[in-house]
């Protein structure tokens, strides 16, 4: 075990997986010479060469489209989207091809594309450096989605994504890239997709969250003194329904927390799951603490948008006071 920051753990995973499998290559904007704008790909070009850590022209759809062709050639591309909102052009290829090509070949060809990107707000950045676009990706058939909240999971989930035969998108919470520190296993470390993590055990209320919101939920649990079970979803698709439903069955109260806008956000899916499969366990209405249905704000006002410890704490009190 070594103590690493979350972004160092991402870098560790890339070094480990490139060393393990010669067919893996990293591609993106500024990933090679610069080592990534967040240094997530630092050292890869020097160690593995410019053909395995490739600076591509600035074209996100073209990059992801090229990744489809690389898969047909038998390679395993890992595409970095420089920022959440800069990934939107790639949705064209993601929706029309990346999520459909295995199906289109009737399961005869693997498309082991990994897309990783820093996401989320709170970093005092210019417009379109703050989005939480996970719902667009989860909604796309054929795509898997993971969101780590700890350095250990950042390494393990990324390794699982790279080894997975299907396209996987990994959202890395940039707010805690350098503030989340934790023990990370050295060498190969894989955290399987589809398994949630109990970040904090409790029996009065369940807080469902992922990414940077997990720590916010933990702090809210601390602040309110209510016995909250914080479930770190980790894998949005496939989703670990079992762990979520077991927690709801235990607590009977649920709040869902994410940074993305509320309407048709991933929280709506979680709320529907609870309504369909755990309704009779509920002692209070399911609550959502989310961003709002407006563009991510001017950064002087962003703290009003990103779910805060105060807003989550208020939701917890509302649940137990119902």
């Amino acid at each position, binding site marked *: 075990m070594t103590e690493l920051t979350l972004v160092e753990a991402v870098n560790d995973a890339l070094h480990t997986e490139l060393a393990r499998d010669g067919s893996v290559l990293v591609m993106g904007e500024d990933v090679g010479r610069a080592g990534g704008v967040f240094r997530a790909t630092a050292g890869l070009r020097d160690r593995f060469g410019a*053909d395995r850590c490739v600076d591509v022209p600035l*074209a996100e759809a073209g990059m992801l489209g090229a990744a489809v062709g690389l898969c*047909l050639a038998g390679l395993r591309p890992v595409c970095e989207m420089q920022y959440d909102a800069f990934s939107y052009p790639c949705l064209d290829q993601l929706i029309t091809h990346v999520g459909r090509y295995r199906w289109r070949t009737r399961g005869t060809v693997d498309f082991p594309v990994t897309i990783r990107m820093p996401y989320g707000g709170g970093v005092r950045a210019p417009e379109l450096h703050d989005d939480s676009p996970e719902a667009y990706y989860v909604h796309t058939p*054929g795509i898997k989605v993971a969101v780590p909240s700890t350095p250990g999971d950042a390494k393990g989930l990324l390794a699982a994504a790279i080894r997975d035969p299907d396209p996987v998108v990994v959202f890395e919470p940039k707010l805690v890239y350098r503030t989340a520190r934790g023990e990370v296993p050295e060498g190969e470390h894989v955290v399987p997709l589809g398994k949630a993590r109990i970040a904090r055990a409790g029996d009065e209320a369940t807080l469902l969250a992922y990414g940077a919101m997990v720590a916010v939920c933990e702090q809210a649990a601390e602040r309110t003194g209510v016995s909250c079970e914080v479930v770190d979803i980790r894998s949005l698709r496939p989703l670990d329904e079992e762990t979520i439903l077991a927690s709801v069955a235990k607590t009977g109260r649920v709040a869902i927390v994410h940074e993305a806008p509320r309407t048709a956000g991933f929280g709506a899916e979680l709320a529907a799951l609870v309504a369909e499969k755990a309704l009779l366990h509920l002692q209070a209405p399911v609550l959502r603490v989310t961003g709002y249905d407006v563009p991510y704000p001017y950064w002087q006002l962003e703290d009003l948008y990103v779910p805060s410890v105060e807003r989550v704490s208020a939701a917890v009190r509302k649940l137990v006071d119902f």
Partner: protein
Amino acid sequence: MVLLRVFDERALVYHRQGRIGTYAIAWNHEAIQAGATFALDEQDWIFPSYRESPIGLVRGMAPATILQWWRGHPSGWWNPLDWNVASICVPVGTHVPHAAGLAWGKKLKGEPGVAMAFFGDGATSEGAFHEGANLAAVMEAPLVLVCNNNSWAISTPISAQTRAETLADKAKGYGMPGVRVDGLDVLAVYEAAREAVERARAGGGPTFIEAVHYRAAPHGTADDPGAYIDQERVETERRQECVGRFETELRDRGLLDDELVGRLRSEAEEAMRAGIAEAEAEPPADPRAVFQHAYAEPPPDIAAMLEPEAHSD
């Protein structure tokens, strides 16, 4: 060329008979499709758009497979690795980056192989075309871009598509050679493609070929070009269609006679008769195919749909 022509003519009939669904007509595009692919080896890849749906025939793919694609039956979706023919790309131009990626991947792996992508004049307005062409040029990928400029993108004429004097001019912006050929002259297309393939194999990177002609048939079975096209021009174009033109040329040189012409045509017609019969004799699609193949290992909710009792919400 004859097989491609007969496929197209019969496919149109099968559509009118209700035996296949909507069909994108390829009539008079045979010189481009046959001429360009004739310059390839089996190790090379073809990336077709819907206009090149029958292109697999040049690699020996069964007509039944392609007919099943147009019939919406799962058996029409082939394994690209079996033929080095990518799946038919429906959204315009979005397969250009795939071809660029495949070509680049071959180069990275040190494997032989060239990629050839087919797309229309309208596709050159798409971002995907630009991004794919640019990436291929930067990576010096062994790619041949074959632009089927038939002057129309459904009802949008080339004059409303670009202010560039020729589409081949666009190649300069990517730092690759751009060649303009008569799209009805199969030998001219072949020669341009052969040069491009040779250059690609030698490490010279991609080439853009603009094969120019005028669409002499509707875009597809759901299109009525009477509303927009110049019918007199269409009639002129139909009189100089590419298969007959090449046939005349070969006859003039004494390389083709009635016997061979008749045999090629009847063999192709027989292949189509057998193809549609084979397609229609295939059992109906297995309903389980709705839920298969989206993932290598389906998530539990999708896996559950493969159980018959799960089909009610």
